[in-house]
């Protein structure tokens, strides 16, 4: 079941075209990797789909136009995990994860057992149950990233958009979070994640969408998208390829000159 | 040059009337002919004593009907703001000023060679008498001063004679809760009008501040507002309209006396006393 269909997305910021005619789709159970060089428009595209940036084009959630949903229904249908790990107040991890339940609560409704259960599930999946009472601002980068991811998972939305969820994490936690996203997709969610690491993208994602200068350059199976031609065009790289234990890896090896 | 003896005698006879003439002229010059008054209180007393003929200028406040009793009289007189250059322009031979301006104005004028008579605000009838007497002497009309005082005392005595036995309590209540206690002219006038000044009774000496709570507890028979007609709105005056004062009725009565009767001491305090007496008898 297609959870997300975005077509013909154009985003202009201050007169400059950041995203032009881009499309993005994700089905239930799919982990889609959104990749491309810096400035390609990945974050902007994600934000536009999440309703955070004004854009032209259509966005359908479960076949229905996103614009038809009220704010809270939209928030229940789509969970967004932004870049950055800003937490402004020294809240406990559990309270922070609990914020993910806000779209499910009516204005004066108190959180109930269903909400507590969802929070527990999210914290268990991200392996932070033991950090529940800790001040988030004192946690390590990896722990904090997992707390914020748990917050997004607590929404239990059918669609999750994650902007660079593994940036600034050490390799151990990068693997951990990617495995987590994979498991979450397998459990039924549709996930679109912006990634810079080509190997992790290739190993865990069902499909890749490669962006370059605001347009979608290539889309589809990771092996096909990450061919030499696309890597040269988008990243100006030549890469080293191989397989190990059944999965392929793609290592950026050499910069290529212009043209 | 040596004159023959007979001529010297003639000259002395000729000189004598001249000496006499100069002497009396000098005596007449001692009575000031161009007077500048810089203070509302001296304005009013001067006008009461000598009219406006010899006055070159009065203070600008003399034209304010809420403060001055001589508004009509001074209509055509130029006003001054007690500034040295202004005063100098009138070239006065006498300047009347308030004693409280001693440092800022009076001293400077004296050093410039002007004759300055300073009036201190009287705190009692005795001081008022003395002030009027002194001022009348300086203005060259001592008999006028005496007559003014006599008239005032006669009217006040008539009031006092009419007093009756009961002495209801009264309080003056001013903006910001100020009142007049023992040792003030207001206190004396209130007593003459047949009232017992509660402020004096509670130990206030001179001008003092009375809290609203104390006022309610004191609950005088009469509360006197002596500043109606003041322009504009202020928190200070709002205190006099506090709703709790309304709740003191009917036990407490209120009377509003025009400010001009209290701001300066003078013969018009008889009117103030008479109005207080009328409020008592109502």
């Amino acid at each position: 079941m297609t959870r997300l269909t975005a077509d013909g997305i154009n985003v202009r910021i201050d007169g400059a075209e950041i995203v032009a005619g881009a499309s993005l789709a994700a089905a239930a159970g799919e982990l889609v990797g959104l990749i491309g060089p810096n400035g390609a428009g990945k974050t902007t595209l994600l934000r536009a789909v999440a309703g955070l940036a004004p854009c032209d084009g259509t966005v359908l959630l479960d076949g229905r136009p996103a614009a038809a949903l009220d704010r809270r229904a939209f928030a229940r249908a789509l969970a967004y995990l932004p870049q950055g790990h800003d937490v402004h107040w020294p809240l406990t991890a559990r309270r922070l994860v609990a914020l993910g339940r806000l779209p499910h609560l009516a204005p004066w409704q108190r959180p109930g057992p269903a909400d507590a259960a969802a929070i527990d599930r999210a914290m268990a999946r991200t392996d932070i149950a033991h950090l529940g009472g800790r001040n988030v601002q004192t946690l390590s980068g990896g722990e904090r990233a997992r707390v914020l991811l748990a917050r997004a998972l607590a929404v239990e939305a059918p669609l999750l958009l994650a902007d660079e969820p593994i940036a600034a994490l050490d390799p151990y936690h990068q693997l951990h979070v990617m495995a987590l996203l994979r498991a979450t997709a397998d459990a039924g969610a549709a996930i679109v994640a912006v990634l810079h690491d080509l190997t992790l993208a290739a190993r865990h994602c069902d499909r890749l969408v490669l962006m370059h200068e605001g347009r979608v350059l290539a889309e589809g199976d990771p092996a096909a998208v990450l061919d030499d031609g696309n890597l040269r065009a988008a990243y100006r790289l030549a890469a080293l390829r191989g397989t190990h234990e059944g999965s392929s890896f793609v290592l950026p090896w050499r910069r290529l000159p212009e043209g | 040059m040596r004159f023959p003896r007979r001529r010297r005698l003639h000259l002395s006879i000729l000189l004598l009337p001249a000496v006499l003439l100069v002497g009396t002229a000098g005596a007449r010059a001692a009575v000031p002919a161009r007077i500048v008054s810089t203070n509302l209180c001296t304005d009013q007393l001067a006008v009461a004593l000598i009219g406006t003929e010899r006055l070159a200028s009065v203070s600008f406040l003399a034209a304010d009907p809420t403060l001055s009793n001589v508004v009509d009289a001074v209509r055509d007189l130029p006003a001054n703001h007690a500034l040295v250059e202004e005063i100098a322009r009138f070239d006065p031979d006498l300047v009347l000023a308030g004693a409280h301006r001693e440092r800022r104005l009076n001293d400077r004028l004296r050093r410039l060679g002007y004759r300055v008579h300073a009036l201190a605000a009287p705190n009692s009838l005795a001081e008022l008498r003395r002030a009027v007497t002194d001022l009348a002497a300086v203005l060259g009309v001592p008999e006028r001063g005496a007559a003014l005082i006599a008239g005032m005392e006669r009217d006040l005595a008539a009031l006092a004679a009419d007093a009756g036995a009961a002495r209801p309590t009264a309080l003056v209540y001013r903006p910001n809760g100020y009142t007049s206690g023992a040792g003030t002219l207001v206190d004396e006038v209130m007593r003459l009008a047949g009232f017992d000044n509660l402020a004096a009774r509670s130990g206030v000496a001179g001008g003092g501040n009375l809290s609203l709570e104390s006022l309610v507890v004191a609950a005088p028979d009469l509360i006197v507002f002596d500043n109606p007609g003041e322009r504009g709105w202020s928190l200070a005056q709002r205190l006099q309209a506090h709703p709790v004062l309304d709740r003191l009725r009917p036990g407490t009565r209120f009377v509003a006396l025009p400010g001009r009767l209290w701001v300066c001491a003078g013969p018009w305090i008889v009117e103030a006393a008479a109005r207080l007496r009328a409020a008592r008898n109502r």
Partner: protein
Amino acid sequence: MTAGAAEARIGAPTLAVGLVALLAGLAFLSLQVGQVAIPAAEVLRGLVAGADDRAALIVREIRLPRLLLAGLIGASLGLAGAALQGLLRNPLAEPGLIGVSASGGLGAVVALYFGFAAAFPLALPLSAMAGALIATLALYLLAARDASILTLILAGVAISSFAVAMTSLALNLSPTPYALSEMVLWLLGSVKDRSMADVALAAPFILLGWALLAGVGRGLDALSLGEEAARSLGVGLGRLRALIIGGTALSVGAGVAVSGSIGFVGLVVPHLLRPLVGHQPSRLLLPSALGGAALLIAADIAARLIPARGELMLGVLTAVIGAPFFLWLILQTRRRMR
């Protein structure tokens, strides 16, 4: 803003009950204190039994309005402070510091001293609220994009200075002779000698402001994650800003209209209570209101007890506590940001 265990040590109901008890005790004390000594039994009788003797009059017409105003205004300042700090994600935001109170004071002075309020009584609170609204909007425009401490303080200084300067100008131009001496009352605030009429004038607007501020807790919680995450959680940021700006202008403005500008309450109270509610913005709102009311009532009691010529201004007392606290807060925050 302390590191370490952030779990609230006190449950929300316990904290609320504790603050209410404190408030009740202070309210009782406030009615006892005054120029005239009235025994406690008589105070209660005057309050409850509707007696009409002198003591009852004093309690109901002089001390009660004072208590009610201090409570209403203190609560407004605490609540608005907590809301503004949540919105701007900045612990230094509060109505006094950022010039909202001073601007409300300007509005009040213009209405009172130039005859508008005499012609039309509602002109007073409306004018004060308009002044407060303009300042809150200006501050939001100046400081929202760049929520750094420096920008906020500078914006607050600019707005505050302008409002104070205009207030002195207005008083200078006004007809009454008492205007200049009253400037102190407007700049430092007082609830002395206020009447139930003043309470009746301000209370409806204050309560309306509270109603607007009451519902912003969720949105402020979501804002802890940043504006984008908050929006993705379904929080309408425009509506949130409007509620906070409007609620602040209403409650703080109406309070300033009758009592003058009182500062620092909105800074001190939320800061002290924040650790007790686990730093969660939504759980800080009610305690800040209760704490603000308690603080201002306590300050009003102290103003009457401390021997001085006349009575101490309320704003002086809150400044004596608040200004050093503010300096300490700046130093602490700077250290953390380095």
